[in-house]
């Protein structure tokens, strides 16, 4: 055993807020195992198994198609409706999984966290990875329909912009995780927040051009608010790449990136502070 190679100092005094990413890196195998487990457990004892990954976005896209496409007759910037809603569901689903999946980190893992120490951040990070893998599967579905519509000449994607999709994922993943861990840190004390999350996410979805294109919005305060929503610009960029519709909004993308970094850093710092003693309050 190496002599004195490892030393941890635990002090009661609060150190300046820290991110503790080095420790997370040491536990990277655990992140991967958590990610795998989430798949093993989710589709355990289901008949259709991983097919649900495709069925549920397809079903919700069909519902949106009926509600917003047929009944409310919202436009889609000329893109095929099914493809429009499928791509919107995929990218929003990724973001909301990153947020909702992490909003209960402390409360739902209290049993485990209360008995053994490992960097708690591994749990949110693995949630982002599983959301990313689910998104990847859904993107294949989108791609399948895209090929069909391409053959019919109904869409013209901007292929070069596909290279930006990993960046969009990185940003939305960080933003979702940042919000999620921020909420999870606060819910250890104020449980009310967990009730707000699901309703809040619904509202947030309608404040994002997911089931409607940005171009449908009339000029005014509402449109400005939606533009400043940090999810809007990445979602539009994603549509721009995949469907060739929508806008690239460089200014709002930059603003969204800044907001993302602030929220992620803040969230992780608060998360790390809460992880020290949350067991005493949960």
């Amino acid at each position, binding site marked *: 055993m190496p002599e004195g190679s*490892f030393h941890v100092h635990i002090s009661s005094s609060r150190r300046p807020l820290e991110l503790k990413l080095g420790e997370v890196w040491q536990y990277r195998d655990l992140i991967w195992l958590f990610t795998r487990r989430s798949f093993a457990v989710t589709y355990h004892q289901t008949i259709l198994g991983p097919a649900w990954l495709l069925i549920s976005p397809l079903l919700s896209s069909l519902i949106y198609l009926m509600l917003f496409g047929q009944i409310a007759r919202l436009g889609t910037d000329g893109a095929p409706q099914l493809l429009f809603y499928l791509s919107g569901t995929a990218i929003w689903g990724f973001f909301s999984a990153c947020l909702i999946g992490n909003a209960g980190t402390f409360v739902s893992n209290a049993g485990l966290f209360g008995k053994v120490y490992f960097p708690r951040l591994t749990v949110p990070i693995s949630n982002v990875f599983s959301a990313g893998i689910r998104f990847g599967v859904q993107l294949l579905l989108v791609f399948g329909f895209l090929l069909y519509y391409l053959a019919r000449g109904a869409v013209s994607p901007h292929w070069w912009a596909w290279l930006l999709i990993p960046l969009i994922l990185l940003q939305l993943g960080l933003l979702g995780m940042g919000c999620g861990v921020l909420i999870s840190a606060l819910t250890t004390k104020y449980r009310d927040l967990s009730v707000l999350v699901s309703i809040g996410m619904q509202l947030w979805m309608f404040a994002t051009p997911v089931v409607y294109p940005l171009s449908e919005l009339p000029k005014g305060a509402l449109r400005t608010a939606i533009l400043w929503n940090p999810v809007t610009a990445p979602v539009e960029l994603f549509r721009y790449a995949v469907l060739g519709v929508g806008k690239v909004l460089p200014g709002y993308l930059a603003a969204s990136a800044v907001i993302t970094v602030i929220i992620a850093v803040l969230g992780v710092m608060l998360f790390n502070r809460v992880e020290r003693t949350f*067991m005493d*309050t949960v």
Partner: protein
Amino acid sequence: MDLKDRPVALQLSGVKKQYRLGQIGAGTLQADLQSWWARRRGREDPNSKIGTNTNLHGKTFLALDGIDLTVFRGEALGIIGPNGAGKSTILKLISRVTAPTEGDIDLYGRVSSMLEVGTGLDRNLTGRENIYLNGAILGMTRREIDRKLDKIIAFSELEPFIDTPVKRYSSGMYVKLAFAVAAHLDNEIMIMDEVLAVGDAAFQNKCLTRMREAARQEGRTVLYVSHNMNTIRALCDRCVVMERGRIRFDGAVEPAIADYLSMSAGYDAVDLDLSKMVHAGLETGRVLRMEHLLLESKVEPVYTAEETMKLRFHLQLEKTMEQVLLRFTVRTLSDQAVGTAWSQPMPFPVSGEAEADFSLPLSALAPGKYYASLGFYRREPGGSLDRLDHISRAFRFEITTNADALMEGENAVGAVVLPEMRGIIL
């Protein structure tokens, strides 16, 4: 071997841990913001009583009250003490599950903790998958586990079931799997809390051997919390006795155990002030509290097996209750449980002070000296039992030999008198 020559494995200096009692919740957001704002501006917290550390929103409780402890590498340290003394809190701080309120902790080595058996096992995964998951949670890398997988499976004695989901395991198998993983960690400091209470005797021995090996041959440091004096004897070479958040004894194992067993106040007394004794747990003793106990018609707590022990309790009740039971557990001086007697459920129709009489026939106990632990329980409408108050080793009593009994020690005849045998000569 001189301990002082060995390198330090871990050190606690002036460690205090404070818990807030009672409900933390509604209405605290505003108060928290107020306190936070006051702290920000260097003012006094408007929500704390002047000159105290008592918060208006709940009493605080010092689980650890200034602990200084240095453990050297390769030592196997036992931690004993009554419930609520702070044993588990020490382990929680060392395993970094929670942080100290005051003081510093230095760990020279990675810590592997087994605060409870089965931590991090997922019921839906197979034994093999769980070895990986559990190992990673406890700090192993995948490559390390790959290397040790065969050894871990062999140690767990679960080869035929290793690809079966853990939810189909019996609780014994579950424990074996969990311990097998923990036993193969390379971490320099191992901490255990009553792990050995489960599993069959052969497996327990195996675990003890493994931990002793880890300490003696591999130079690991073991911290072990237990109520079982025999496993402390078997494993540890140093022992700490804790009482009310402080260390009251630190030294060799036998004197420590003697010190611990002598802690129960009121030995050989028949008039016992229970209110001064250590009541187990944080929440116990709130609704119903044992204040005083009289062993009736006795001048010393010595009985013959034909006698009936008469207990008169003086209790403090917060409210009226139905279905209250007394639990009376007999333990030998070496801390083996002998047996437990329950009273029938009875109602307490008045709150405030109450007197209650119980009687226990002693015919089942062999001659010898015993400790009695007392507990009051309430049967909930669902049928489960809720512990109201408990005192471990509240008093000591003796069963004397009657004339025709063999004069042999407890080890020769045991602690329980079995029913008379029948013999027929053919």
